[in-house]
């Protein structure tokens, strides 16, 4: 008698998803399927459009991280025209991007991940949310989170023209620069952001690392996978979100490959399954061996944890201190425990804030030289950045007028489709066994496997109910309902 648990829709992520958990006769997990039910068709409908529109059209792939698509698209369009953008333009784009990273990582940590750690994975559900976090650590926190989001989006708007779906990147640079007045304001906000990042790390240290039960959870096997790790690095092998080469390390931490973004197709391929609209990227030179861990499996991960693993160090001093502390605490490189991604995310938050201040205090940031008119014939180009959720690649081909003829996109979270599927599978198998009573704590822990990857979105404010309404329906093979478990539903 096969039992089946369907979770539909997956909630607290960007986009749509569904999980099917099949139990065997003994009541153990036979298999799980994580399905993506949507396809909009950007790779088809961007064809025929002028290439300078693509940083604007691809913004709409994701309204949570349009900045990532805007930058990858802008870089691809620059590459299509074989144009080197002025240094000021590069800095302005990276400045916008750093402020965006601060906002985005903050939103994820406080609203989505924070409650699990600050309150605890089996804390009463009513408290396991941003409200509970605020009660535990103080009302100030909610205000700080809102402040941080406000500051980040203010910078995005000053440089990008709008808060959501920036519009100022064009082939060759930007349509505008910033004034000295704006620069001062951005610097003030950046300094605040550094303090806020440090505050967040201290919070994590006090509340999570100071609690043995949480540390055990992080270090435990349920959420651990040994895979390859990918991240973008500069020439010193420091993490860089905006530009550099893509580096992959193996499960032992050794460099496997470091390639220029334009060579991605030699290294990445996408596996197809007929039961989902999304594909599974894997390392071509290792090969697709299925949803399995290990050095022989081409599955790789692209997350804040991956980036820390793939880099040798951080480019800014405070973040570097935290990086050292991270690996010292967790027993060296690489770290395989997926829940540690939440910590890695905060280290990136600090780096992004430091980089923000570094860029905005450069004397050339207010220069009026923010656009170089392209002169070469347009052909083909690749633009790659690190999206918060993984390495993002845009590849455009155009005709001689610069009208797009072909598009290939490998999007951040897509890199992690296989690892997420594996994490869900492993968590379900570990937690649901013969005789297990499926409780709400268990449901939350299955969700935690998923949540560590920050699949694009999480609730950002405390205004939403603390309870996580969730319903699990268990059917037997005849379709009769065997049991229905609910928490805070209806």
């Amino acid at each position, binding site marked *: 008698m096969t039992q089946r648990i369907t979770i*539909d829709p997956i*909630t607290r992520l960007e986009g749509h998803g569904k999980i099917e958990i099949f139990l065997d006769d003994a009541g153990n997990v036979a298999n799980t399927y994580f399905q993506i039910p949507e396809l909009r*068709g950007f790779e088809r409908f961007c064809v025929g459009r002028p290439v300078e529109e693509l940083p604007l059209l691809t913004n*709409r792939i994701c*309204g949570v991280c349009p900045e990532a698509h805007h930058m990858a698209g802008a870089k691809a369009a620059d590459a299509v025209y074989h144009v080197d953008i002025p240094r000021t333009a590069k800095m302005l784009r990276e400045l916008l991007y750093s402020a965006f990273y601060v906002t985005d990582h903050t939103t994820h940590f406080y609203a989505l991940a924070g409650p699990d750690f600050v309150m605890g994975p089996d804390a009463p559900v009513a408290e396991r949310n941003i409200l509970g976090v605020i009660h535990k650590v103080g009302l100030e926190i909610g205000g700080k989170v809102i402040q941080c989001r406000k500051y980040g989006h203010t910078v995005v708007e000053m440089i990008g023209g709008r808060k959501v779906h920036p519009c100022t990147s064009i082939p060759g640079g930007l349509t505008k620069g910033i004034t000295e007045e704006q620069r001062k304001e951005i610097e003030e906000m950046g300094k605040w952001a550094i303090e806020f990042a440090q505050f967040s790390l201290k919070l994590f240290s006090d509340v999570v690392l100071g609690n043995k039960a949480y540390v055990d959870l992080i270090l435990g096997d349920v959420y651990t996978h040994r895979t390859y790790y990918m991240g973008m690095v500069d020439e010193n092998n420091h993490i860089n979100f905006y530009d550099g080469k893509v580096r992959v390390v193996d499960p032992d931490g050794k460099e496997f490959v470091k390639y220029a973004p334009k060579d991605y197709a030699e290294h990445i391929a996408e*596996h197809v*399954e007929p039961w989902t609209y999304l594909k599974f990227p894997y390392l071509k030179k290792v090969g697709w061996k299925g949803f399995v861990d290990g050095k022989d499996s081409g599955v790789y991960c692209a997350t804040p944890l991956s980036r820390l693993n793939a880099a040798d160090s951080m480019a800014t001093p405070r973040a570097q201190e935290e990086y050292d502390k991270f690996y010292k605490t967790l027993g060296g490189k690489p770290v395989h425990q997926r829940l540690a991604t939440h910590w890695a995310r905060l280290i990136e938050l600090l780096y992004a804030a430091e980089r923000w201040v570094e860029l905005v205090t450069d004397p050339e940031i207010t220069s009026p030289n923010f656009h170089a008119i392209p002169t070469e014939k347009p052909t083909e180009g690749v633009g790659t950045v690190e999206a918060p959720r993984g390495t993002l690649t845009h590849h455009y081909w155009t005709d001689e007028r610069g009208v797009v003829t072909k598009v290939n996109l490998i999007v951040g979270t897509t890199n992690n489709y296989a690892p997420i599927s594996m994490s869900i599978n492993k968590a379900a198998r570990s937690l649901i066994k013969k005789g297990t009573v499926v409780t709400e704590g268990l449901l939350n822990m299955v969700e935690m496997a998923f949540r560590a990857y920050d699949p694009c979105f999480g609730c950002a*404010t405390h205004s939403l109910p603390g309870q996580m*309404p969730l319903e699990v329906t268990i059917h037997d093979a005849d379709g009769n309902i065997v049991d229905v478990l609910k928490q805070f539903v209806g």
Partner: protein
Amino acid sequence: MSAKPKFAMYWAASCGGCEIAVLNIHEKILDVDANFDVVFWPVAMDAKYKDVEAMEDGSILLTLWNGGIRNDENEHIAHLLRKKSKILVAFGSCACEGCIPGLANFSPVSEIVETAFSTVSTDNPQNVRPQPHYQVPEGEITIPTLYPVLKTLEQVVDVDYYMPGCPPESHQIAAVIDLVIQVLQGKAELPPKGATIGAGNSTVCDECKRQRNVKTIKEFGRIQFTHADPELCLLEQGIPCNGVATRSGCNARCPTAGAQCIGCYGPAEGVIDYGARLVSAFASVIDANEPAEIDRILDGLVDPAGQFYRFNLAGSLLRAGKSAFKSNGG
């Protein structure tokens, strides 16, 4: 039990930008919290479809729907939420007019799938395509079926209000929330059904601070090939700017930042077909009377249908290219 009126927000074929725009009202979210009970918002909390099905009809006071209708699941949920909601708002460009995903309507949906599953990096020697029903060893699993043509919300259910924008500007969202709260407190009246809310009644040109003169265009340019004059109308400089037919309400954000208006706020008041309006506007100001010269100037617009229907294709009179409809068999 909470006595607060119920609120829901749902996304179909969209991008999440509308959700972020709502969150960007910052402290004002406290007013939403104080005045509403959020009962369904998949991006942010874990109520499931089953929970909506269990609700009484009409028990949700206000539902903000963003996203277009791309597949059968989107349409199913649209009917479900219409039943359960008193007020259903088509929130954002996707719901109002299809928005960017609506560009898929230029091609048959088979091409959408074909392209995605045969890119240069896709490893698919057996040409596997996603199946709405698939038998795995343990049982049958399903994914939604794509529709041949993406539809807007009003093309499948009755809509009470329209809030345009990609996304709607946060200051506009804040204003609408204020209005709704005033209505709840009996201090204001709802606008007439079918109204467009959270936006202006004029065009982007009205909010744009650039200087405008009589337009006589001899050349259409591309924004990357010029250092445009920041004080002068972009269309006048030959940069294709859709502000002339686009609804106001956004403070002409993009032209202010040096970029052309791409039309994300949808048609201005009174416009029946946005693209047709733009054909008229752009053509009228071409400085040529001879067919050969007219054609030469028009060659500078490399993608007119995309330029004029960028956000609006699914909601336009024609709705899609002929080849997209053909795949429906009719």
